[in-house]
C-alpha cells in the first residue's frame, strides 16, 4: 500500500535521454519501479537500455499505458513538460526540475482546473516520492528506505534523506515518503498528503518536515484540527533564519500571522501535533507512538 504510487504504477520518464534522466530512470528501474517508457521530443524510436523512447507523452501513454510521469527537463522546458502531461490527462506527475517560473506552474494548474484534469502534480523542485518496496519515482537514494508503517512528507530533499536514514537505522520503516518540493508554488501540499495518509491502512503515523515561508504548515494544522487523525510528528527548519524581507506588505497581509517558524510550530502544536526541536528527537518520539 502506501499512497500516490505502488507496484502497479507505470512510469514514463520525460527527458530520459538527458544525463540526469537516463541515470535516474535506470536507478528507478533497478529499485523495482515499472519504468515503461521515456519521452524526449525528436528522439522517438530510440531506447535507453531497453526503455522505449517516444516523441510525445500521448504516444507513450497509448503505447505503454503509462499512468505516472517523472519529469527531468531543463528549467526552461519544465513548465511545458507539466502542461503536456496535464493536457493528456496524466494521473500522476512528479516534477524534479527546479527553476521553473512560479507563474508557469500557476498557469499550468489553472489550465488543468479549467479542463477538468483530475490528476496530481508532486513538485516541482522536489526529490519525488518513494512507496517503499514498490516504486521509487524521482531521485531519492534507494538504500536508505526500509518498509514499515510511517508516512513522511517534507518540503526538503536532503533533510528527508537525513531523517529517513535515522528512522531506518532506528528500525522504523516507512510506507511512502514524499518531497512536496521547495518552490513557492507546488502541486500537492502537506494537507493533500495528510488526507491520503489518513486513508492508507498501512500508515500508522506521519512525519511532517516543514520550513519557514508560506502557510502550507499552517494549512495542514487547520486540516488536522478538524476531527481525529493519525498521530503526526513535525519538525520545522529555519528558526534561526533571518526574517524574510521578501514578502512585502502584500505577503504580510495575505499570510497574516503565518510564515515564521514560530507561527508554524504553534499552529501545529495547537492541532495536537508533536513538534520536536531537534531533528534527532524524531525516532524516539515515533517509537513512543508506535509502541
Amino acid at each position, binding site marked *: 500500500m502506501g499512497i500516490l504510487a505502488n507496484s502497479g504504477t507505470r512510469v514514463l520518464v520525460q527527458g530520459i535521454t538527458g544525463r540526469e534522466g537516463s541515470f535516474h530512470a535506470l536507478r528507478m528501474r533497478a529499485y523495482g519501479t515499472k519504468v515503461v517508457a521515456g519521452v524526449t521530443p525528436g528522439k522517438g524510436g530510440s531506447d535507453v537500455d531497453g526503455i522505449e523512447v517516444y516523441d510525445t507523452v500521448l504516444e507513450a501513454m497509448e503505447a505503454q499505458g503509462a499512468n505516472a510521469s517523472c519529469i527531468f527537463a531543463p*528549467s526552461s522546458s519544465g513548465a511545458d513538460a507539466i502542461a503536456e502531461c496535464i493536457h493528456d490527462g496524466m494521473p500522476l506527475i512528479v516534477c524534479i526540475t527546479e527553476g521553473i517560473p512560479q507563474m508557469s506552474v500557476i498557469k499550468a494548474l489553472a489550465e488543468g482546473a479549467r479542463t477538468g484534469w483530475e490528476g496530481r502534480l508532486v513538485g516541482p523542485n522536489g526529490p519525488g516520492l518513494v512507496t517503499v518496496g514498490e516504486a521509487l519515482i524521482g531521485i531519492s537514494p534507494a538504500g536508505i528506505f526500509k518498509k514499515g508503517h510511517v508516512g513522511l512528507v517534507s518540503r*526538503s530533499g536532503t533533510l528527508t534523506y537525513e531523517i529517513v536514514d535515522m528512522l531506518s537505522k532506528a528500525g522504523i520503516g516507512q510506507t511512502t515518503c514524499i518531497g512536496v518540493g521547495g518552490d513557492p508554488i507546488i502541486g500537492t501540499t502537506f494537507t493533500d498528503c495528510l488526507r491520503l495518509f489518513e486513508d492508507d491502512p498501512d500508515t500508522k503515523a506521519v512525519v511532517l518536515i516543514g520550513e519557514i515561508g508560506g502557510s502550507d504548515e499552517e494549512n495542514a494544522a487547520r486540516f488536522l484540527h478538524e476531527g481525529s487523525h493519525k498521530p503526526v510528528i513535525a519538525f520545522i527548519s529555519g528558526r534561526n533564519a533571518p526574517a524574510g524581507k521578501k514578502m512585502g506588505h502584500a505577503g504580510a497581509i495575505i499570510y497574516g500571522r503565518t510564515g515564521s517558524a514560530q507561527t508554524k510550530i504553534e499552529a501545529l502544536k495547537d492541532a495536537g501535533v508533536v513538534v520536536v526541536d531537534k531533528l534527532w528527537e524524531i525516532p524516539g518520539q515515533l517509537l513512543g507512538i508506535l509502541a
Partner: protein
Amino acid sequence: MQLLEHQGKALFRKYGIPVPEGRLAQDAEEAGLIASSLGVRVAVKAQVLAGGRGKAGGILLAEGYEEAKAAAAKIIGMRIKGITVREVLVERALSPAEEYYVGLTVDRSRKAVALLLCRSGGVDIEEIARSSPEAVYYRALPPNDELHPFKARRMALEAGFDRARILGIGGIIANLYRLFMGEAATLAEINPLMVTQEGKLFAADSKMILDESALDSTLEGKRTLAESKDDELERKAIEKGLNYVRLEGDIGVIGNGAGLVMATIDAIGLNGGRAADFLDIGGGAKADVVRKSLELLSEDKNIKSTLLNIFGGITRCDEVAKGILEAVGAGSLPFTMVVRLAGTGEDEGRRLLEESGMKIAATMDEAAQEAVLAAKGAC
C-alpha cells in the same frame, strides 16, 4: 530579485504607471543639480533595500540646489539596517490629498495572483490589515495575460476608492497587472498610490520582486541579479553561481539542500552559536563547487569556524571531500573546518579526509557542537 525604488519606478514608467518626475543621483552635487533643474520642492530618498527608510532619516525634503545637496550629503554614506546608502532618488515632492495601497502578489495557498487594495495606504498598511482586515480588499485573479481596465475599475469601486478617480486607478491597476505578468514579478506594490491636491495620481513608492527563475539565464540577467544585491559577498556568490545569503554570526555553514542547510543553522543555534551564512551547494555538486564555496567563505572575516554538512543522495561525499582538499591545498583556510558526511560515497569521502588528518563528526548534532566550540575557542 528585489528591486530598488528607482528600478521599480523605471518599470512603472515602462508600463504607463505615472510616477513623480525625478532622477537618480550618485553624489550630493548631482542631487543638487537635479533639484535645481526640477525647480520644485523635492524629496531626496535613499536607495536601499531596507524597510523603514523614512524613520531612519533616509528621506528628506528640500528645495533648490543648496538644500538638496545638503540633504543628499547627509543621506549618502548613511547606514540603514546595516546597508550603506550609495545613491539617492531626487524627485518632485507631492502634496497628497489621499494615499491608497495597491499590491499584486503570488498567493501560494490559492495558487493565484492576489490583488490587494486599501483606501488607507502608506506605511501603516500592515497595521491596518491586522486591526481591521475588512478594510483590505482581496481578490484572487486568474493568471491571464490581461486584466481589463473595466474589471479593475469595478474592483477599485468595491474597495471603496473615490468614484471620481476610478478611471485613472483602473488603468493603473490594469497596467500593474501587465507589469506583474510581463516582468514575471512575484510582488508589485504601489504604496502609497497618491492622489494629489489637484486630483492627479502618482505611484509615490515602488516595491517589486521579480521571480529569479524567470530571469533569462544569460549574463545580462545574472548581472542585474548581482547588482540588486547590497552585499559584496552576495554579488560575488552570484558571479560564481553559488546560492549564498550572508547572516550575522561567526560560524560558516555549507550544506546540500536548503532544508538541510536551514536545519544545520538551527542546530548551531540550539548549541548556542550563530551562523554566518546560508550556503546551499544543491544536488549533485562536484568538487569545484565545494572549493569555490570555501573560497567564498574565506573572504568573510567574521567567520571563526565552518561546518560543512552533507547528506549524500545525488551528491557524492567523495566529490565533496575532494573539493575540501582542493580548497585546503590552495592555501590554508582562515577558520577551523568541521565536516560531517553521510550517505552516498560516505566511506570513500571519510577515507580521503582522514588520510589528510581532518576529523569527521559522527552526527549533525555533534558537528554543530564542535563548530560552536571551535568558534568560541577562536575568540
